[in-house]
């Protein structure tokens, strides 16, 4: 049992409070000391590669997995030992998990029937929910007769009708094709605007995360890498892992040697190129090497003003993206990617020289991957 049994007024205001949550399977620990406060009406996204623990934590929130250690409070109440139906949560599963032997109508109403809600009220709530999600025509059908998107909406309706304190979504869009995924994503966003229910949403798709979240929790190997708004995570990644995970196309990362220059500048050299940075923006004291991170959109072609720095190489690969092209420029086995306007029209084998936007460059510790950017450094 944790020592924290009474919460401060501010803590009581959070819809969800996770304190040192731990999950163990036998000898193996898969979630390490997870701490998070989710505010009322907030849309939080758990993001990360497979196996990072995001679904496990969600299932602990739902009550489908035992909590090995730590405290979980939902709506100010400690829920560690409460079954799912007493936690005030509703869940939307990845494979929809609709009851195949019941009609859509019975699927939606199944949870309410157990609470012995009067029939009239069940009917009116069903009508409300099916109108919102456009399911009126499908109420008498069985789930197998519906398309993937329709089934997903039924799953959402089933969750909505219980007016829970918290919505939990477990990768709900992974089974849909790209076009449908886009459409449903917008529906979910609009739904959140209307209902304003606190939501925890799990996904491995960073695009979904960036567009839907108020805050993103990026996880790796059962630990939090970073918590922040999409903008914070994108502009100030706390580690090389976060920097490489967020953003498409992915950030260029390479190890460079650090050399001091005059006038508070440093030059980083390596892999056939060099970059000059303002040393005051980074914690570079005593370092001989650092990992450089620069996004393809933050590189540009050399102009007359560049003074010998930059990356030189030949065009190895051109990927046409529409308005832009993603060009891989390489020399001696090392490559760097850059986004250029299509009009620039690079050709294979053409020699190019690229210069990084000094204000948009990131540096990371070579061993730990931690960001070396000073908190007070200005980005724009």
């Amino acid at each position, binding site marked *: 049992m944790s020592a924290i049994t009474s919460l401060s007024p501010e803590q009581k205001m959070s819809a969800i409070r996770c304190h040192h949550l731990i999950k163990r399977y036998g000898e193996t620990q898969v979630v390490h000391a997870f701490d998070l406060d989710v505010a009322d009406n907030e849309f939080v996204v758990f993001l990360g590669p497979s196996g990072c623990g995001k679904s496990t934590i969600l299932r602990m929130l739902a*009550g*489908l*997995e*035992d909590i090995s250690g730590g405290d979980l409070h939902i709506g100010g109440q400690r829920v560690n030992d409460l*079954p*799912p139906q007493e936690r005030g949560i509703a869940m939307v599963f990845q494979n929809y998990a609709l009851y195949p032997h019941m009609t859509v109508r019975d699927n939606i109403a199944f949870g309410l029937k157990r609470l012995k809600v009067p029939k009239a009220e069940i009917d009116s709530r069903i009508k409300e929910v099916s109108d919102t999600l456009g399911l009126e025509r499908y109420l008498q059908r069985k789930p197998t007769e519906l398309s993937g998107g329709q089934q997903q909406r039924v799953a959402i309706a089933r969750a909505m009708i219980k007016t829970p304190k918290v919505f939990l979504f477990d990768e709900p869009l992974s089974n849909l094709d790209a076009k449908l995924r886009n459409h449903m994503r917008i529906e979910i966003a609009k739904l959140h605007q209307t209902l304003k229910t606190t939501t925890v949403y799990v996904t491995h798709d960073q695009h979904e995360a960036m567009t839907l979240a108020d805050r993103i929790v990026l996880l790796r190997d059962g630990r939090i890498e970073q918590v922040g708004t999409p903008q914070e995570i994108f502009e100030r990644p706390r580690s090389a892992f976060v920097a490489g995970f967020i953003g498409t196309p992915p950030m260029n990362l390479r190890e460079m040697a650090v050399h001091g220059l005059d006038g508070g500048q440093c030059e980083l050299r390596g892999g056939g190129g060099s970059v000059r940075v303002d040393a005051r923006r980074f914690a570079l004291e005593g370092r001989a090497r650092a990992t450089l991170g620069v996004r393809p959109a933050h590189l540009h072609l050399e102009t007359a003003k560049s003074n010998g720095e930059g990356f030189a190489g030949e065009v190895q690969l051109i990927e046409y993206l529409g308005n832009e092209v993603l060009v891989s420029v390489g020399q001696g086995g090392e490559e760097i990617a850059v986004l250029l306007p299509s009009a620039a029209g690079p050709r294979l084998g053409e020699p190019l020289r690229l210069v990084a936007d000094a204000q948009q460059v990131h540096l990371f510790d070579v061993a730990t991957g931690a960001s070396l950017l000073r908190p007070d450094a200005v980005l724009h």
Partner: protein
Amino acid sequence: MRSHKTRLPAVFIGPGLLVLAVLALVPTVFAIAISLQDRELGQADTGWVWFSNYVQLFSDRRFLNSVRVSLVWEVLTVSATMALAVLMGTLMHRCATPRWRQVLSMLFIVPVLLPRVSAAFVWKFAFHPLFGLITWPYKAITGEPLDLFADPVLALLTVAFVDVWQWGLFFAVIVLKLLETLPPQPFEAARLDHAKTWEVYAYVALPMLKAPLISLAFVKMVESLRAFDLIYVMTRGGPGISTETLDMYAFSQGFIESGRISYASSMAVLMMVASTVAFTYIWKWTKPS
């Protein structure tokens, strides 16, 4: 996985397991106990003779013959069943349209559903020397009735034929279904490599099904030990004792001939041991974890 300790597993498994345990263990214990005595049906007094029944078994010529017959029976029926099943299964997979496969599948299940007794009668009738349907052509051509049950070897083969008829066709359906579960890509790759059809099956399909096929063979091995019904009806163990398998002999000792229940029990115990050992092998094979 479960959030709360629920008593459902105990409540649900308990009664069934209890019933099963009682129904299984009591006879087993009894069988062992009886086999160590010298009981006879209808006689009140018994004494403990310990292992003398077992010792006697191994010098009993008729027992040894029944073991031989059982072994021959096992090898014959299992190999013939698997051969028929694989042949018919692949033929169906290769040459039959889906609709034909459905029709044939339903037809092929009919033999195994029949009570063994019925199957025995049906074929005994069909093979009857005087007015059987199958023996009629022979009679028409040679003018001699064909009595398959008079010759020891033929009798065994005939009974084995019925057993394979029942199980081989059924297994053929299973083989077909197994083949249908295979992904098509390896076949396509083999075809692109100019493999002939039979090679595709022999070298690609069947090796992929090695595990389930071996399981099927084991199942048949155990099923073959229960050939009593067929033999009892078709030949009663004859001519002579040429079709008398282990279970027929045990039955005759315990039931018909002398009510020598202890002697029969010792055979029963041996059979239990053999089938348990065989089953343990099957279990270990199919569940490596």
